[in-house]
């Protein structure tokens, strides 16, 4: 018989390396037509790093994202990145991009000062234009600055970085330290159907409500959440490389026939995503890390939902049909 159940989970997740101290650097260079080369060696692995990095640099320079190119391709030309891990890239590259943009604006003003006949401090920068505060008609665009600086042999490159402050040494007795200043938060509700004759669990509804601070690009963030849901469901229901562990590591899965990962058939029948956007006081434009937390709520929410449906508690992941069925049978025997 199909039994319905509902479960939930609430999590939080640190942004950046534990203990801080993981810097990134961004460079911004104006080309002769006013378009901008951005560099930072973070990795694009599906999460949308390049799009989000450009959006934050564009925001900091108050110009459209379409005028950017980004180079993250190698260690000879792309500015330093500590790693692409720990839900850190949006946050740390974003702060580095803001710093690089400030540096670029300062250098633009220094270069334009001579042409516009004013001291750098008398100039204002807005939306890709630098102009005299007292006479906005005395102005130069990024294209004019890019051409004039390059063809006069002047280098204009904005560089900036960000270092999350390293936490104090951990107290060995109490564990006191500062692992991170910024945390993302989230709650998920999952409705399941459990077949008590086969132990098969199906995800019916999945509701995620996450706070990743300001959402820099909702398309990318929703993509992360959808992917996280699938990976979380997979951890909850399917993935186990060595099912006979800890007795033995054999038989060990070595292919996707023995090692089950979800397909479209395993997606929730219905899922919804909502972001509540608290403003992180430290993050770029109020953003927090997103990448990892979105894969954390599903396993406990599923296990809690299974309990709600059939009254058995899966105390070791994953909640395979075999495991669920054995628990149901044990429960029946005990009753």
């Amino acid at each position, binding site marked *: 018989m199909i039994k319905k159940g509902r479960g*939930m989970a*609430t*999590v939080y*997740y*640190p942004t950046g390396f*534990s203990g801080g101290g993981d810097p990134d650097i961004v460079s911004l260079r104006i080309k002769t037509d006013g378009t901008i080369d951005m560099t930072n*060696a*973070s*990795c*694009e*692995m599906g999460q*949308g790093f*390049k799009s989000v990095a450009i*959006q934050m640099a564009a*925001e900091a320079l108050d110009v459209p*994202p379409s005028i950017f190119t980004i180079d*993250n*391709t*190698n*260690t000879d030309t792309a500015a*330093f990145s500590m790693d*692409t*891990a720990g839900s850190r890239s949006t946050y740390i590259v974003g702060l580095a991009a803001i710093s690089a943009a400030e540096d670029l604006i300062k250098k633009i003003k220094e270069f334009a000062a001579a042409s516009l006949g004013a001291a750098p401090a008398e100039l204002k920068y807005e939306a890709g234009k630098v102009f005299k505060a007292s006479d906005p008609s005395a102005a130069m665009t990024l294209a004019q600055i890019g051409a004039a600086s390059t063809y006069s042999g002047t280098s204009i490159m904005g560089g900036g970085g960000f270092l999350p402050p390293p936490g104090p040494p*951990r107290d*060995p007795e*109490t*564990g*006191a*330290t500062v*692992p991170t200043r910024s945390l993302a*938060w989230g*709650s998920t*509700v999952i409705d399941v159907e459990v077949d008590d004759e086969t132990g098969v669990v199906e995800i019916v*509804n999945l509701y995620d409500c996450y*706070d990743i*601070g*300001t959402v820099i*690009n909702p*398309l*990318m963030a929703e993509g992360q959440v959808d992917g*996280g849901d699938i990976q979380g469901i997979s*951890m909850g229901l399917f*993935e186990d490389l060595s099912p006979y562990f*800890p007795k033995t*590591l054999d038989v060990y*899965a*070595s*292919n996707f026939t023995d*090692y089950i*990962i979800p397909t479209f058939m395993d997606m929730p029948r219905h899922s919804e995503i*909502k972001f*509540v956007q*608290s403003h992180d006081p430290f993050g770029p434009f109020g953003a927090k890390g997103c990448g990892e937390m979105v894969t*954390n*709520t599903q396993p*406990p*929410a599923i296990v*809690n939902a299974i309990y709600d449906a059939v009254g058995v508690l899966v*105390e070791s*992941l994953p909640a395979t049909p075999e495991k669920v069925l054995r628990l149901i049978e044990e429960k029946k025997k005990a009753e």
Partner: protein
Amino acid sequence: MNSVGKRIPRYDGIGHVTGRTQYVSDVAMPDMLTCKTLRCPYHKARIKSIDTAEAKKAPGVYALITKDDVPHNLFAMVPDHHVLAEEITRYKGQNIAAVAAITKEAALDALAKIKIEYEELTPIIDPEEAIKDGAPQVRPEGNNHMFDGSSVIRKIRRGNVEEGFKEADFIIEGRYSTPSQEHAPLETCCSVAYVDASGKLVIHSKAQGLYFAQGDLANVFKLPLNKLKFVGGTIGGGFGGMNSIHTDHIAGLLALKTGKPVRFHLTREEEMLYSTIRTPWVFKFKDGIRKDGVITARRVEVLHDCGSYTELGLYAVEKNANMIAGANLIKNLAVDSRMVYTNKMPSGSMRGFGVNVGQYAEQVQLDRLARAVGISPIEIRFINAFHTGDPNHTGNPIAAASTIETLQGVAAMSGQQLSDKYLAMSSEK
């Protein structure tokens, strides 16, 4: 804001969906050699002798390397992992020797000609057995990691748990465990390495952190950073697996040795059997809870099975310890974490990294507490939620908390009625 918050399409999305994006697996070069490695068939063994003379003479072989050919045979974030195995191997599939040959078949034929004599040793697989005195030793320093150089226990202490348990109306215990898990990226690990016209070693890499890998392997190759270039930055999935090096080191060594481009591409089977994984965890909770739903004390014992080398296991334990008590204000808390080495693949990073495994345990335990008290799952989460300004379990103040707001949000989405009391709550006190 004009850019931030906008649904701007993916910068390189068209390339991905039309097949124009070049991944490492797509990189091909003229005269490129294929690398295959000899892997240890036992969970633990002593290599008594190894004779590569015949294999080196096999047709199509350009180079064959063992540990003696590695300038510095240690790598990884905590550099205790051997590029090619030393006398004692620690996990099934550990690389012992590597061949670069003109074809995959020639490479495999050469590997078959290596004469190697093993003494199979008793492995230890179960982390709860491995921590015991007298367990077979995984590494010379002992199976237990010594935190701060002196303690097998990594502690968190807040308040007084014994006093907290006295205040409780119920004491609830639970034990939870998580298995070994594979990252399962679409693109398996691949490196293409060559020496460029200036004599620089160039490695097309799947690394999630190009500079991270470059810094690590500069030590292995003993090369300055202007003689070692990593190329990549767009990969077919990582999920943390590509924070560890699986092929870059060996491909690079063979490119240096042969002067030719060398490709080392793991098969799906190799990726699943022999690369880093999310290794197992065991969590034991003992909680005290009052009738009103307030958690008065929590004691957690954590055991992380790190596998055979440290890789990112230690980092995962640190992150886990700080987060294991969950998004709840708990005044009396004791966390005791241990990390133990066993004869399985090393503990890599994997999305959710040390945290999600603990959150599975903690969130299932939290529902157990709610049932004991007779309140709903959502109520116990509201009652114990962190607020902005509360001290985290590590003592530092929490900024921009929003457990309460996400609970209110998810309740509305899923059609759960909340009482006025919970609707009026806020993370700002």
